[in-house]
């Protein structure tokens, strides 16, 4: 093997097998083993030749990385001759994340210290540290760039990072979670996977109005959160009993196939109703405190999901309950007299929250 052994072409030709291994943090040697394992046709080639080809690719990737970190630069850079399709493919691969790793990254604040402690995450998720670092840096980079930009997150991500729609949507949710510093690290929440949180975040982003001042795009509109305070009336004594009656009545109508099971369900909800209802309203009430907002997922779990799980309610039953709970709230007599916009505010709040709960209920 020579001290210089390179081959350079005018068009950037990328071996995407090697690219994905590079992204996953394989060293050249490991990459070679992997390629030989995967591609039967290369078996009779000399190892040094395969090694050299991988090295050429790695040289390109190492140079490309600076542009991949700011993908909109990739379009205008003159260093490499890359086609539009290639750019899309490269960026998509580069910003691909491992949900388990991302879940772990979101457990902590995105600080410089955490970047150094990625080894733990790597061990836990059985991923290479380099891969973890890339995913961490990507997220931090996206957040950093977005900080300087105005306008909706999704549009900015699509524009500046040239990501395909679905990936951009996921990142929007992840950025949202990270920016609002939702606490996902509680032990009790550890059964939840990244997709659960992405779903919940997307529910909130699409249903709840965001702050009008563009500076903090991922912040909720404060007035909107304050309006949740008014929902408190639902847990006042004069309304809660009526609400409970309506809900249980409604549930009985819907549940009518398996007598013994349904009876048990109705009895359980009868017992739990006041606590659950109060919890849901309390959560709404406290959302305007940023501390409580951070603990949203934990609160939902501890105050609603856990009690239901303890008595072995199944997901379907909870779904029916939440559905009835929402529908019947509008029918509680005289409630809109007390608070005229009740229906509207309650729906805004509860559709989102019930969707989140259902997603988290597994």
């Amino acid at each position, binding site marked *: 093997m020579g*001290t210089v052994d390179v*081959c*350079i072409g005018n068009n950037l030709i990328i071996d995407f097998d090697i690219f994905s291994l590079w992204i996953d943090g394989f060293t050249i040697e490991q990459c070679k083993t992997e390629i030989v394992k995967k591609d039967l046709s290369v078996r009779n080639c000399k190892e040094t030749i395969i090694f050299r080809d991988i090295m050429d690719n790695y040289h390109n990737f190492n140079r490309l990385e600076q542009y991949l970190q700011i993908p909109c630069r990739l379009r205008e850079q*003159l260093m490499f001759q890359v086609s539009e399709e290639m750019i899309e493919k490269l960026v998509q691969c580069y910003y691909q994340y491992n949900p388990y790793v991302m879940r772990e990254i979101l457990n902590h604040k995105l600080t410089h210290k955490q970047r150094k402690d990625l080894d733990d995450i790597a061990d836990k998720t059985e991923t290479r540290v380099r891969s973890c670092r890339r995913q961490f840096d990507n997220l931090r980079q996206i957040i950093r760039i977005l900080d300087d930009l105005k306008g909706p997150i999704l549009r900015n991500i699509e524009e500046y990072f040239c990501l395909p729609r679905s990936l951009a949507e996921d990142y929007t949710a992840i950025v949202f979670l990270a920016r609002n510093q939702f606490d996902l690290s509680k032990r009790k929440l550890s059964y939840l996977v990244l997709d659960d949180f992405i779903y919940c975040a997307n529910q909130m982003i699409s249903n709840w109005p965001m702050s009008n001042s563009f500076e903090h795009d991922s912040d909720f509109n404060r007035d909107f959160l304050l309006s949740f305070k008014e929902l408190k009336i639902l847990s006042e004594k004069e309304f809660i009993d009526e609400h409970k009656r309506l809900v249980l009545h409604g549930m009985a109508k819907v549940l009518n196939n398996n007598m013994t099971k349904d009876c048990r369900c109705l009895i359980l909800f009868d017992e739990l109703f006041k606590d659950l209802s109060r919890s849901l309203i309390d959560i709404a009430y406290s959302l305007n405190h940023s501390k409580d907002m951070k603990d949203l997922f934990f609160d939902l779990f501890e105050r609603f999901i856990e009690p239901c799980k303890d008595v072995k309610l199944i997901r379907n039953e909870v779904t029916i309950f939440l559905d009835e709970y929402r529908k019947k709230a509008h029918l509680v007599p005289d409630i809109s007299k007390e608070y005229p916009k009740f229906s509207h505010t309650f729906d805004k709040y509860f559709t989102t929250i019930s969707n989140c709960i259902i997603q988290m209920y597994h």
Partner: protein
Amino acid sequence: MPGKIKIGILKARNLPIMDRSSESSDAFVEVRFGNDNYYKTPVYKKSLDPEWNSRFFFEVEEDEIQEEPLQIRVLDHDTYSSHDAIGKVYIDLKPLLNPNGPTALNGFFPIFDTLHGIRGDIKVQARLEILSDCNEYRKSSSGVQFFTSSRIPEGYVLQNFCGFVEEMVLNDDPEYQWIDKIRAPRASNEARQKLFTKLSGEVQRRIGLKVLDIEANCVLGYQQYFDLEGEFGIVVRGIGTAANIIRQTGNIKSQLFPEISKHSKISPNRLTKKISSESDLNHQNLINKQENQNGYSISEKMEYPFLTLQQYPSGFIKSVCGIVCSRSVKLLNSNNEFDDLESRDKWWIEIRNEIRSHMKSLDCHVVLGYTETKSICEDVCVLSATGTAALFNEAFFANPLKRIDENSSEKCSICHVPYDETELPFPVALSKCAVCGQGQVPDVIFTSIQPLPEIETIGRGSLIKAIVSRPRKKSSGEISAKMISDYMPFMEYELHRQLLGKLKIKGMNMLYGLKVQISIGENLLMGIAEATACFAAPLPKPILPKIINDKMNREFKEIESLKKLLIDEMQRNIDFYGLDFKLSSSTIEQTDSENDSKALLKIELDDYREKENIYQLMDSAAKKNILACSTEYMPGIEFNSNLQMFTSIYRCEAKLVQMNIKKFNEIFDYILEGLNYKFRKYKNYVLANLSTDTSLFDDDHAMIILTGSCLTYGESNIDIKNNVEITNLSYVPNARIERYLGLVNLFLIRESTQIKENGGLSGFMHCFITEVLALVRAHVLSLDGNALVSFKMTECVLLDNPHRNQGQCLINVTGDAVRIVK
């Protein structure tokens, strides 16, 4: 004549962070042209994407534009300390002088720093307004178009060839000046880049003057060389073919070339120096022999009837004869009565005269595919000149309408020998032409030109290479020069023996594009020859090499097994290349006739080394199914699309004395296999126009650069979407060149003190070549082009110091910027 350059420095993007605290830069731009013109833009504060939108103009002389590049320097403003350099851009404005060329230059140029590489891009515009100069004694030679492509440019019609033009300038190399000991590396590198760019401009300007003098309008097949002679200085040489061409208009009928009655004017250049009486005599002879040519002949008009082109319009060549070559070993520091430039001039004149006399002894009157090269090691240099001796059709220019029917009638006549059977210039076996049965043909023809479409070939072509290496004693000066020159004939002989042997075993009989490179190392001499071999129909079928066994003690069985091996190998080659003839037993047996004995390749088995040689002759390419050639076209294959141009660089660290032919062959096979692996996803491809450049450094490392193009054939057109196509071919397969936009000639130096951190020397070189290609593309785009043809890396020197973690590389690339239509 004064002219005006209107320049716009518009904006930059993606600048590096120069100020850590604010994570931005305060950039401004200095623009220089020549000694007197200077402009500075305001500082654009705190931005990595500054916008200056400065527009201004310089008043310049025409000859300045030919020599001076526009220098753009981007800096970071510092209030308290000196400004930090971000990088520079050199822009050659020569293409704007060309009346047919682009009128303005506009685009993003990568900002290049010799220590950091490309750091962002800057958008520059330039437009030239000039009054043309009609003064006879002018210094400028604008309007003469230069083409590096070694053929008649696409879309043009050749009117006539006017002569061989050459020019040479000598200067001190800034790297070896005393001041270099005290200045920073960046300043030194930039001084070199600037000087070399300027010198190459000067060479072109001077050649241009000569061209105008002999009333030509362009230089075709322009070759430029940088001879880095170290402490002896730097020589920039240019050679080319002056010619008159006109753009092809709607109808193909071309005008008659203007009759040139007057002799060329006396000018202060060296072209019209004395013509020796001997050559005059030869002229007489020539005229006597070819009475029907009515006095007009290229060879008469030109002092040196050498043409640097490798492809000629059909009907131009009457007959090709063979390679003529001349070499000479010189000492750089020889203190003779002439000054340095003059002595170097004399050396080349000697060589050219020798080539001319070789040509004449072959009864030829023109040398085609002519090149001049120089290899240097310390104070010894080897000058070489090669070309293909040939005859051309005198009627070609006189009667353009006749061209077409003429070449259709006698296709095989190009192969016929021009000399009489009774007066052979050297011992050669002649036989009747296999196509017409009339003319006499030799058994093999070696040429340095591209494959001639007129000569019918059978089957596919193949790359052939021969390597000779030989250790030499460490010495210097006179002794060293003598040793090298003593060995030179043996080397030449050995290279040809190998070529001939390999050619026969391949079952072929013709070589195109033969290129021989001599490299001298401190203790090693090396020669590499490469060519495209093919089977030309008019020439006789090759016969199996004969094994002669002088000593009776060698076992008969061993000889037989060797013979069988050879036959098997030959049969395999015939099948692989589709040569479509049978190795009949008669051809194998019949070896005793008088005629054959000359044509035959004899392998004498005197010792075991010879046996080694037999194995060496059997190339491995056929076994590995690699199709390769050293020419732009592959006989027997029509290319579809250009997949990729590649540059492969390999440097090995080894005691060079221990490097033998076998080891070098292994390296080449390794490089080829590596390329084969890279393109394994494509089914039908050819590695075309392969060209190797070998340099030996000190006594412990050798660098081999292999450039080529990967072309596909017989496949549906693979469309590679790119902005700028760069190819080392003079054409783009499946595309038409619409317009030639000018010569791109970049001289770049890159240095690094962090070799280990950036992927070692490999990483360094990979990065630099990528940057060079990026710069080339930017220059092509700024001229409104979309391709660069005839790309050539004429110089690539890598120096390193592993202890200091340092590396320096110097590269010169040239090519023709063009606009193509697919």
